[in-house]
Every structure is written in C-alpha cells, then in structure tokens.
C-alpha cells in the first residue's frame, strides 16, 4: 500500500476516507452510482459514526502508508448520533497536533461534513484533497522502498 512514484514520475496519493454510515458513505455510494469520477487512490472505510474513528485508526493509516486521511461525517448539529461528529473533530484536532510534532504535515489529515446525498461535493472534496496531497508529495512516515 502507499502512494508510489510511477514510471512516468506520477504520484498517486493513497487516501483513507473514514465515511459515516449515514452521510459520508451514502454520498460516496451515490457518487459511484452516478459515475462521478474521483481519484482511484481513495479507499473508503465505512464506519457507523465519525465519532468512532479513534485517533489510533488515523495514526495506523499513516503507519501503514496512507498519504492522507479524511473523516467524512454528517453536517454539524445534524449527526445521526447527536454529537459523534463533534467528537470526531476534537480527535482530528488532537491528532493533527501529534502529526506536527512527528514531522508530518497536518494538512494530511482533515474532516468534511456533508448531507447524505452530496455526491458531487463528495467527489469534489476528494479531488481537492488528492490535489493538495500531490502538492505535499508522498508521506514521509513510510520509506519509499516499503511503499511498493
């Protein structure tokens, strides 16, 4: 796993997207059903609520070679489980501090809140995130030779 500099020197970032079962994941599904394209390196992980994405999940993704991690959940104040997305935001903020101390750019970890049918926005967010990661380059958390 992990983004790799291909033969032509192209770098396709690997993104782990934790999507909640009620808004993030349906949006991803709808984007797929409607054939809206987003980058192939985006790996969708469905979770019941964004609030269950522990800091360890995010760090583990980086440990195993992700170039970026995004947590996608319901709109603020509209969480299916009341306050899960607030919890997720707190945890992401904390992990971003850890990433900075570790020497990883904190732009590699972000959140996005959306409604259940935002297929276009989902694809747009992923496109933007991957473009940003391309600018940042491969994650230094994993050495290049391990990424193949």
């Amino acid at each position, binding site marked *: 796993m992990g983004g790799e500099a291909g033969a032509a020197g192209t770098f396709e970032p690997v993104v782990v997207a934790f999507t909640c079962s009620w808004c993030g994941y349906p949006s991803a599904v709808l984007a797929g059903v409607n054939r809206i394209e987003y980058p192939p390196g985006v790996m969708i992980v469905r979770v019941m609520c964004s609030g269950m994405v*522990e800091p360890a999940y995010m760090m*583990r993704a*980086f*440990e195993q070679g992700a170039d970026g991690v995004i947590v996608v959940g319901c709109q603020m104040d509209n969480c299916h489980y009341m306050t899960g997305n607030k919890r997720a935001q*707190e945890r992401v903020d904390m992990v971003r501090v850890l990433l900075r101390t570790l*020497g990883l750019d904190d732009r590699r970890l972000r959140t996005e809140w959306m409604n259940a049918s935002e297929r276009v926005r989902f694809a747009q967010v992923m496109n933007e995130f991957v473009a940003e990661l391309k600018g940042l380059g491969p994650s*230094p958390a994993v050495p290049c030779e*391990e990424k193949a």
Partner: protein
Amino acid sequence: MSEKVIKRLIQDTRAFDCVECGKCTSVCPVTRFNREFAPRLLVVKAMESPSIEALAKERDLWVCTTCAVCSSMCPYKVDYTEFIRGLRAESALLGITPECSQGGLLHSMMRIMGKGELKQRRLDWVTPDLTVAPKGDIYYFTGCAKHLSTVFQDRKGLDFGGVPEAAVRIMNAAGVVPAVSNDEVCCGHDLNWTGDENGLAALIDRNLAAIKATGAKKVVFTCPEGLRTFSVDYPAMGDEDLPFEVVHLSQLMAEWVKEGKLKFRETKAKVTYHDACRLGRHMGVYDPPREVLRAIPGVEFVELENNRDKCLCCGVSGWVSCDANTKLLQMEKLKEAKRTGAGTMLTFCPKCQVHLNCALQDKIPVDRALVDIPVQDFTVFVANALMR
C-alpha cells in the same frame, strides 16, 4: 522450534530454580483481584506444554503488569518479568498481539518514528529562558511527555507536559547545560513490552545515532521507562555496551543537593512518593528521590504504607490489558496514598500519572473522599521549589 525457545527462556530467567514457595503470587498486584493469575503458573504451563501458539493465547500472558514485584520478592531471583517479556516477543512473531488502550495510538507513532524519514518538531518545548546545547557531555533524553500530554489534553489534573522544561530548569540551576537533539525518537518501551522487538531495534539505531552525534558521555532521564529501556534492553538487543553512561535525574539531583548546587525556597506541602516500578524495582533507584524531597525546606515527606520495593503498582504497563481489576488495583493505590494524609502523591513516571488520573476520572464505585489525591510529577514539583 518453539519448544527450544521456551526452554531457553526458562533457563535464562532461572525459572527452573522455582521452589514453589508462592511468595510471588502473594505479592502480585494482579493476583489480588484475579485469583486465577499467578506468575509461576505461567512457567508451569510453559513447561507442561511448550508451545508458543498455546501460550500466546493465554490471557495471563497479557494481564501481567510487569511491575516486577514477584521477581524482587523471589528468594531464588527468578526473573518472571523477563520471562513474560520474552514470551510476548515470541507471540508477536506469530502475529498475536494484545488489544491496547488508546487502540495502539502510541505504538503506531513509535513505529512511524522508527521507519519514517521525518523532520520532527520534538524540541518545541525549548523556550528562550532555558539553556540547552546541540553538543555536550550531558545529554537530556526528552522522552514522550509532550506526546502524552497532547494525547491526554482533555484530562483534568495532569501536569507532566512541563516535565522537559522542569528538568532543564533544574539542570541549569545546578550549572549544567544539557545537550538535546531533535533527531531523538521514543525509547521504544511500549513496543518492547508488547513484543515488537523489530520496532524497538529501529528506534535503538536512531537514538544511538542521535546521541552519538552530540558527543555525550552521560545520558539523563526523567522517565523511568526510558531509563530502564536504555540501560537494560538496549544493550541486550545490541551486541555491545552503550557508549555512554545512563543516569536518572533524581540521582544527579541528590548529588547536586549534597554539593550545595541546588537551592530551594520554602515550599509548604505534605507529599508522599510513589516508586514507579521501572525506576525502583527494575533499576534500584530508591534513595535519591527521597533525599531530594528531604532537602526542600517546608516539605513534609510521608512514606506510603507499601513503599520502595513493595510499592503497589499503578495497574498497567505498555498500555496492555487495562481491565476491571486494574481499576480495583488503582483504587487500592489511591486509598493508600490518601491515608497518608499527604496533599499530593509525587512520581516520576508519566504513565503512572496517566493511569492513576484515569482511575479518578472514571465513575468509580468507591467513596471519592477516600481516593481523591492529586498525582503530580516529581520533576515539575522540584523545579517549582527552586530558589529563583
């Protein structure tokens, strides 16, 4: 194959010498609340069926807190703690690892530090009023106090975030300018005690390179886990002795107090001291912290009922198996501390602080007035008592 490994472990840790006196079981903090656990029973099981596959799935292998009270009480000096560590390393090779508190967040960070090509920002805590150097005879190992204080930022009453500053302030007051390095990584204690020896080896290489680059002859620790890992596990993993001496800050502080280099101001406080297992039983440092406390005017120092090598455990090590029994254990500890009448319990270990603080945060089935005692960092306490 696995039989041979187990037999060697039994031999290396002198487990054959066991005379079944049961002292280890009677002092074991885990056995107190979990009657099925006994350090020596694991050795018996290993002898009866020497298969790592079977042993690795034993819950007992992972509920041990590795506090080493068994080994320190054993009349034949059987090293149960090392036996457990060895078995865990073998289990990890089979891919059997425990479920850790924080979901293994800190373990992941350590592995990233071991293999990544990172430009860390480890020295953000160095403020202009602290004097440090890139090179020098004495090196200060920062450790993970800063990472831990980020992870536990929403916990009330934890104050170990200021440990590195406090340590440097104390050293500066004694006229020492410590070397620090941004290339240093975690010591790897938690990886070691969850069986990840490869992860530990990667961290060892980086740490030794970073410290050698500073030209240090002495490496100072505040964290007992770092001290234990450097002085016991680093030489054991490598082939050679460390190219520097390893000391705990309390040992240096005690010397400086005797030489009159550290001056304290009047500090009104009644305190007790918790001997962290890594500092006490693992490394044998008991007296220096007590000497320092006695040198501070106004500080009334009271011992815990179970002190020094009999000091009760904080309940968890390496983030492995924090369960209901752990909480009971922690309540015992806090009750004992409260009974001394002290206003604060001091300790060097940031993990002990995290664990005991956690026990206080939970909805506990005990009268809060019996256990409500703040646990503070020793280094921070001493730095605050320095003459300004």
